[in-house]
């Protein structure tokens, strides 16, 4: 199953520039319905107001990190099934392991390119082997 290009996507990053980069890459991949949030707290508010097909989040943000956002999303019965991709400069093994344990669907390390983003989105929505 390919990702539905009509689904709303929430991009969470405290750097406007990174949001603009991801928004442009998503546009090139056909995803037009993209909302943004500057940290986990703002993202959580948006997730409770609108149903998103995918969350793409940075890790290191204030006041709420992407890691906390992931755990909050997975702990909320209404949001727990929302696909979640972490896009971050945090590339240490402990970060990847913690994110996986918290229920992340995929993990992209910055800097990344359009092909990596496409590949990771596709693999999140691909049927399990």
């Amino acid at each position, binding site marked *: 199953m390919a990702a539905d290009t009509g689904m709303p996507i929430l991009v969470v990053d405290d750097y406007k520039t990174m949001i603009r980069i991801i928004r442009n890459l998503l546009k090139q991949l056909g995803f037009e319905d993209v909302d943004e949030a500057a940290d986990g707290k703002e993202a959580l508010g948006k997730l409770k107001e609108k149903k998103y097909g995918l969350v793409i989040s940075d890790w*290191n943000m204030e006041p709420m990190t992407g*890691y906390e956002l992931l755990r909050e999303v997975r702990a909320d019965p209404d949001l727990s099934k929302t696909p979640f991709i972490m896009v971050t400069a*945090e590339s*240490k093994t*402990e970060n*990847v392991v*913690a994110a996986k344990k918290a229920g992340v669907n995929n993990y*992209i390390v910055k800097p990344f390119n359009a092909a*990596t983003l496409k590949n990771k989105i596709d693999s999140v929505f691909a049927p399990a082997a």
Partner: protein
Amino acid sequence: MGISDKIELENELRKIADYIVTLRREIAVLQANEMHMEKIPAAGQELAAVVSSTEGATNEIMAIAENVLSADASDPAAYKAFVDKEMMALFETCAFQDLTGQRISRVVKTLEHIEARVSRFATYAGVEDQPGHATPHEAETAARKEKYLLNGPSIADEGNTQPDIDRLLASLKGQ
């Protein structure tokens, strides 16, 4: 107190006085006021300028890319002229790297200056680091960093590449 005790005490006091004199000289050599009032604030300003110009250039480059991607290509000649003009603007924008490189070099020199003086002073004074002297803000930042694994971008060879992460995720599948 006997005469020999007095002499010994006088010698000890003289040694302490000599040590204080030389320690004062070393503190003066440290140039702490210059560091605090000039060097460190100047380095901070340089780094702020680097952040600002990098962000500005990135936004300009993205605006150029967005303009090209959304341009009307129905008239090939007009489209080529437009793309040529945008590419020239792109080259001009990339000039920011020269300035940021110079600014970062100045910050590196400042850090080397501070490192040399602090190192000399610490060696001379026989200073040993004592734990537990973090400010409340530093302590809070350190606790948050540890709790939420805020390591930041890795230096080369420290972190995992994307293929490493993909392999790691595959090995954790089902956990």
